[in-house]
């Protein structure tokens, strides 16, 4: 690796790296590039991009800082990590924003070319943070990143503007050196990424190498680091984001069910990638409609469901609000429909790029009339695949709309995912009817699940009409009969409760009884399980019950709740799941730990809270 007698390589278990710069500096690209490399070398990993909602906020300001955090290791990695071991700050604003998110003694790589007085003043520093002791206690590596990148590119004849945009690769080259990573893997990524712009690919590759060789010359890098591959990871893996996983889960369900997939959707942060991914999958029979608004998105999906497709719509909180009326239509027409809500900070436009779990009540209750739907939540980026698959399976087998909650943290975060085989996935049996079935009635139900059957336009001998008006039980004609209405409301409710018979029981992480039960749901799993695991290792009596199925609850929920002395409900909102638990199981006392800052939990803050609760009598 290096002809330096002083060179020493230190083995690490796991490392958290944060790349930060201006939102136009390519931090997301270089972050994905480095993640791919660590994945290919067999590390477990989790990533979290952190970017502003403005596409290019004013350059050099804290509002415009874009970041990408990567946690990779030889051990199991459950979260992107609380604090970074290594920070790359391409400008003072990136340093300003991220300084509070690095560990004491962290390595901070600085682009000195961007630390002129006007730059650090713009970022809100009163004095040059490189000189006034701000960075004391950290290992600071100052590199002329912009100028060396420019020099490298200009030699290749690239224009100055494009040249400057390669500086993320210089910083990345230094990282490849620092962690003894194969730089060819990084170069291959660039070749694929810029396949249509060979000059840009060449320049970026040259700068990546320049950064690598620059690091080689630095005394500070006499010590470099190595992380061994994860020992238990066997088989085929890929790095996947929650949004891609959700899109693929729907596609896998369609294939398994023998149906074509239709997505009617409208672009909205942070859900847009689901629509984007599926619009590229025409070759697998996927049809997408980029509708004129959220309302048309879901209504077109309802039309497609009526016509026999596996129909879905994807959105975020504000879009879910607009879709409320149509979800009610899917409830009363009892059509299968998957609604994916990638939650973000609210209310209203709120914090579009930040994660929050504020839509739970909206998902459970947010419609007119008695309008129950199945509500479930994914809990890691990769299991967005499994829960999108299950949402579709439940929808077509129970003839019911299903809301799947994910969030911006899962959607944009990524982790390694063991690639499943289609043959190993559960069977999906849509409730389709044969042509000319003499017994067909639109609202005739399966006695076990109460699901009606699914006859679709074009089928012979099954012409029927459905819609938003209340229907007569079994025969499905319009009915305003009072007793029939009550019966239909109860049937639709009971049908949702009966889904509990088709979902797995709640699994506990830890002992089945004890002092403290930590309860969570959705995207907080990684942080909760990490905190609980640490405290278990320290000898505490603490277990985690993490919910993926929320409405209805798993059958054994009460069995689990009753075996603990204390229960603490943790969520990224003002206390919504706790409200739902109290309504369903009022006999227990629930403590709460919630946070509503547009940020994930920190493992350390959770541990502190749990320790405090365990100490109290």
């Amino acid at each position, binding site marked *: 690796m290096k002809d330096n007698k002083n060179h020493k390589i230190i083995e690490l278990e796991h490392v958290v790296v944060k790349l930060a710069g201006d939102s136009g500096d390519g931090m997301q690209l270089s972050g994905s590039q480095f993640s791919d490399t660590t994945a290919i070398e067999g590390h477990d990993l989790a990533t979290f991009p952190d970017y502003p909602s403005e596409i290019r906020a004013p350059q050099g300001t804290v509002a415009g800082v874009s970041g990408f955090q990567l946690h990779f290791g030889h051990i199991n990695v459950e979260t992107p990590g609380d604090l970074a071991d290594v920070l790359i700050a391409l400008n003072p604003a990136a340093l300003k924003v991220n300084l509070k998110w690095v560990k004491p003694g962290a390595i901070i790589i600085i682009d000195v070319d961007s630390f002129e007085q006007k730059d650090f003043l713009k970022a809100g520093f009163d004095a040059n943070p490189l000189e006034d002791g701000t960075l004391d206690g950290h290992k600071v590596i100052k590199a002329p990143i912009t100028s060396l990148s420019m020099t490298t590119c200009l030699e290749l004849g690239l224009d100055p503007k494009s040249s400057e945009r390669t500086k993320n690769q210089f910083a990345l080259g230094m990282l490849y050196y620092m962690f003894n990573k194969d730089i060819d893997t990084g170069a291959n990524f660039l070749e694929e990424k810029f396949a249509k712009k060979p000059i840009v690919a060449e320049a970026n590759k040259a700068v990546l190498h320049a950064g690598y060789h620059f690091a080689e010359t630095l005394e500070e890098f006499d010590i470099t680091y190595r992380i061994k591959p994860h020992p238990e990871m066997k088989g*085929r893996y890929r790095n996947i984001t929650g949004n891609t996983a959700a899109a693929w889960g729907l596609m896998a369900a369609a294939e398994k069910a023998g149906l074509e997939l239709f997505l009617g959707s409208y672009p909205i942060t942070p859900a847009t990638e689901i629509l984007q991914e599926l619009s590229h999958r025409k070759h697998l029979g996927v049809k997408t409609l980029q509708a004129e608004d959220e309302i048309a998105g879901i209504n077109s999906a309802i039309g497609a469901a009526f016509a026999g497709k596996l*129909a879905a719509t994807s959105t975020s909180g504000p879009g879910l609000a607009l879709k409320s009326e149509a979800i009610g239509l899917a409830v009363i027409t009892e059509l299968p429909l998957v609604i994916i809500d990638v939650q973000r900070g609210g209310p209203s436009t709120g914090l579009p790029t930040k994660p929050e779990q504020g839509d739970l009540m909206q998902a459970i209750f947010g419609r007119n009339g008695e309008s129950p739907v199945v509500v479930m939540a994914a809990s890691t980026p990769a299991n967005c695949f499994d829960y999108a698959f299950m949402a579709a399976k439940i929808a077509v087998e129970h003839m019911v709309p299903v809301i799947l909650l994910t969030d911006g943290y899962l959607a944009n975060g990524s982790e390694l995912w063991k690639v499943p085989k289609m043959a190993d996935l559960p069977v999906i049996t849509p409730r389709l009817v044969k042509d000319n079935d003499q017994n067909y009635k639109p609202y005739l139900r399966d006695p076990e699940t109460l699901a009606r059957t699914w006859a679709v336009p074009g089928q012979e001998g099954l012409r029927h009409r459905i819609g938003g008006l209340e229907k007569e039980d079994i025969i499905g004609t319009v009915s305003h009969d009072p007793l029939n209405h009550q019966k239909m409301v109860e049937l639709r409710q009971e049908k949702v409760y009966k889904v509990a018979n088709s979902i797995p029981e709640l699994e506990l992480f830890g002992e089945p009884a004890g002092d403290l039960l930590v309860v969570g749901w959705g995207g907080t799993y990684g942080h909760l399980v990490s905190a609980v695991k640490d405290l278990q290792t320290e000898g505490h009596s603490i277990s985690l019950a993490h919910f993926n199925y929320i409405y209805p609850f798993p059958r054994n929920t009460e069995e689990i709740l009753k075996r603990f002395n204390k229960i603490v409900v943790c969520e990224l909102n003002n206390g919504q799941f706790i409200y739902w638990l109290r309504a369903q199981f009022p006999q227990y006392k629930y403590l709460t730990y919630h946070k509503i800052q547009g940020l994930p939990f920190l493992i350390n803050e959770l541990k502190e809270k749990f320790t405090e609760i365990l100490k109290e009598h």
Partner: protein
Amino acid sequence: MTTEESNQVYPLTKEDFKSPGPVKWCAGCGDYAILASVQSVLVELGGRKEDVVFVSGIGCSSRFPYYINTYGFHGLHGRGAAIATGIKIANPKLQVWHITGDGDSMAIGGNHFIHTIRRNIDLNIIIFNNRIYGLTKGQYSPTSPRGQVTKTSPEGVIENPFTPGELVMGSQGTFFARAVDTDPKMMKEVLKAAALHKGTSVVEILQNCVIFNNQIHAAITNKETKDDHQIYLEADKPMIFGKNRDKGLMYKNNKLRVVTIGQEGITEDDLLVHDPVNPDNMIQYSLVRMGLPEFPMAMGVIRSCDCNDPYDVLLERQMEEAKRTSKIRNMDDLMNSGNVLDL
């Protein structure tokens, strides 16, 4: 027509589309005549009756799907166009009709209306325009004329009304026709033309609400005045109207004019000849805008242009091309493609 099972050819009759239950519009409502015309047209069009779907929004007219024996979907207020779009994309073989009213399509569903037309998906949209909200019992609608006194405009409407055809033209619509509910022959002609057009077809039917807006179209539809107040446009024919067939339309100084044949030396040869297929909709747009008292109302197929392939055809073409060229044939292929890591 053939059935999948027997492959026997059998003709459709009106009986095939007869209402499956009681029809509950008010006695004397214009909707009855429209329903009868649609049923006749479906018989004439032939095809499998199972391939016909009626979709609607909310309003009196939107009860239509319950009154015709086809697959039917009674949707949400204003959203019928979006539901119909999903059905047509899901299965392009279906013949999809969307029934709507002036409130449903021009107010709450205005956005879906214009975007459906812009997208040019192969739907047949019928707007029952009675210029009033009927189901909520008599409030003004987006097509109510200025000055009209209704339950929500006690001193008269102070808004400008929409002309549905103008929205169609402004949305780059490829088909627009107009008819009156008192003329079954005219309705059948335009409805059939709408069904045969590939792309979004919009048919506006001037429909009488006998309860809340009775006689709103009387000046256009009355026996005594209709010949002078309507002009029935037919492709490639000069634009002549009037009880005595002596009036016509000319296009002069960039505007339409009503002229009398035989006066000022005007002959039939000087009149505009109707050109509904012309991609340039300038004249068609002027025809749509005509109204009493200066002009007769234009009836018939005003625009029918095959200027571009409908959305559903283009989408199917993209789907086929993608399937033909991709090596990834199923989910196993996809999940094992690209950046995978074998440990």
